[in-house]
């Protein structure tokens, strides 16, 4: 008996091939082209497209400013992320139970996340301005005298200012994700734990946390990646200053690529970042069990 050929076996691939081609064109082509450029010497003054070996990649390891920018990025991540997580969780608990006006309050709380980050940064810069911003004025009322705090110039204040602005804008994102996660925890489990005499912290640790862990992991991963890429708030507040004190990897890459026109070196930096992130994300996914 002759084999029956399903008429649509290959047709489905033909249907999805335009979309895949487009994705490859938009995603894969720039990636490969950047890799090629990273082995050249393309700068503002020279467009030397001959193979330059690993000179740009060797430069990566000699570039102290690059590694400092990575350190600044990690600093912001390790401070802001836990604070956003804890605050978001606390807020989610607050809004877990039904209350009058809950939906309106939740909507208001979400407003910071829908503002463009560069707009948020520019607004905070005005708010924190020493002469015209209300923040120093309000602090001065409490202090009883003018407080000329230079939030974007004073080295002891710049990081608190940046981290505060970042937390202000993105804690609501954590809040929303965790609210959804907490809402889906089986109430019977928590009630049973309560009946058995478990206090809040034991109940949270052994019942709630395991239940929300998968969703929380995804939220942590997403926010972690966002924090790694942080640019807008910093550019609006300090442009990486004072000096290069708040220059993160994104800010440094932008300066190298679009201010200094070190095109090939910037491509090399981009691949370093891709390599680092791939390692970190892979580890995170395995550690958090997200792939299961």
């Amino acid at each position, binding site marked *: 008996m002759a084999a029956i050929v399903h008429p649509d076996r290959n047709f489905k691939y033909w249907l999805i091939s335009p979309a895949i081609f487009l994705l490859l064109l938009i995603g894969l082509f720039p990636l490969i082209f950047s890799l090629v450029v990273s082995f050249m010497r393309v700068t*503002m*003054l020279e467009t030397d497209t001959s193979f330059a070996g690993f000179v740009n990649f060797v430069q990566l390891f000699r570039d102290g400013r690059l590694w400092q920018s990575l350190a600044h990025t990690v600093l912001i991540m390790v401070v802001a992320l836990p604070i956003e997580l804890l605050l978001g969780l606390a807020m989610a608990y607050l809004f877990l139970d039904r209350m009058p006006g809950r939906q309106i309050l939740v909507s208001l709380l979400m407003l910071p996340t829908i503002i463009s980050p560069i707009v948020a940064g520019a607004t905070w810069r005005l708010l924190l301005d020493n002469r015209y911003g209300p923040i120093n004025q309000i602090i001065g009322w409490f202090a009883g005298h003018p407080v000329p705090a230079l939030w974007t*110039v004073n080295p002891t204040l710049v990081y608190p200012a940046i981290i505060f602005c970042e937390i202000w804008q993105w804690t609501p994102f954590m809040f929303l994700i965790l609210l959804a996660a907490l809402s889906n925890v089986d109430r019977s489990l928590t009630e049973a734990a309560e009946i058995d005499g478990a206090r809040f912290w034991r109940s949270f640790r052994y019942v709630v946390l395991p239940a929300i862990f998968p969703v929380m992991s995804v939220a942590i991963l997403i926010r972690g990646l966002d924090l790694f890429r942080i640019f807008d708030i910093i550019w609006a507040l300090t442009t990486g200053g*004072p*000096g290069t004190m708040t220059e993160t990897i994104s800010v440094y890459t932008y300066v190298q690529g*679009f*201010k*200094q026109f070190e095109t090939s070196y910037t491509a090399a930096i981009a691949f370093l970042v891709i390599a680092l992130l791939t390692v970190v994300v892979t580890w995170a996914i395995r550690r958090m069990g997200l792939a299961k």
Partner: protein
Amino acid sequence: MINRRDFGKIGLAAGLSATMGTPAWAASGADTAVKAAQKYKGLSITVVWEAGLQSLDPTHFSGPKWKELTGMDVKVVEVATAEMFTKIMQDYKSGAGAYDALNVIPAWMPDLAQAGALEVLDPYVQKYSYASELQTIAPTFRDNWMKVGDKIYAFPDDGDVFIMYYRRDIFGDPAVQKAFKDKTGKDLAVPKTWADFDVVGAGLTDILKSKGIYGASFFRQPPYAMYMFEERFRNEGGKFFDANTMKATINSDVGVKVFTGMRNENKFMPPGVEQFGFVENLAAFLQGQSAMTISWPPYGRWAEGYGTDQEALNWVPKTTIAGKVGYALPPGGHPELAAGFALSISSTSKNKDAAYLFIQWLNSEDVSRQRVQLPYTLRDPFRNSHYTDPGYLALWPNAKDYLAALKQASQTGLLDLSLLQTDKYEEVMRQAISKLWAGEDPKTILDAAAVQWDDITQKIGLDKQKNVYAAWAAKSGAYPKL
């Protein structure tokens, strides 16, 4: 009767007069441009202009006027100053040809010309007989902002220069003069040196602080303070590089002295002066909170209230010091020709001839005279005729002194440092200044900055940069004759 010999003489005379300058009957640069542009009626050209007040010129005045005269549309692409160089280079590198006419900061010209982004203008200047009118641009701008090597790449179009503005009423107040004499043992006078400035500034702050007035205020944000450092450093005898070795010498004793002075002066300036930008400093001065400041020419116009009734300038704080402002050269006597703008043509433009005619018309004697008097413009006088124009002199009672100060400043002014990849050197200086305000040691900062400058020089090519620096340093406005 006229014989052949007479004909020869007449012909020779006519030929000689044609080569010796523009005859009286010749059309002006503006007329020539308008007439030649008739063939481009209906064409649209794109011009890059600094975003904000500067672009009100082409959007409200010159663009509509040019359309009226020639039928050509002018599309204005407004770009923040910090992005202009990037946008111009990106357009050139991509070959898109999106821009026709350009505004360029003269310090960028070596980079842009070397990269091939700017069109050489000599053939157009010759074709449209504009050479003689270029000669009437004030010498400092004409001789330093027009050419790279021996080729014309741009027309100077904005006479930026730092001026010291001071309160005549404070300096002329007998009570203040007596108090100052009692305190310092010196007569109160507008400072001519930075040492004098420190004494006067601190003294006035001590005397007037109870009234909310400080001796001085400056803009201290790094992009602006960088120009003030460049000016003061050279006035104090500093050199940016050793001309033989191209080693950076910004960390010399002079550099450390200037940095230390700048930091110490903040103590007698308004609190938070480290954050002062153009607007904050303007507000402080116009609201009578400082007795001295240094800034670009618009401060002087706005201090007198000129143009501030315009809607475009409704953000300018209302002046409380109109009629009380005096003008002087900054301490040292050689002010920075900070930034400035010149008109150029993109080498990738598809409408070069049309774009050239537009910039010739803009830059011409007649049109530029009108443009520098627009109340909302930031274009400052840059032609010899601007400084003595009767219309400008009549704008406010003290305008004569204002224009005289601008003219003197242009004659003694110092050029911005202009090398290959100047922005890289400037970025190092901006970061150094922000570190200074953050409290780091001046010597440490400048030593690190010098090392970074040397690295940049090595990367660009020491010999290549040495030649460019030598050409720049040879200009009369590069270093003051002390």
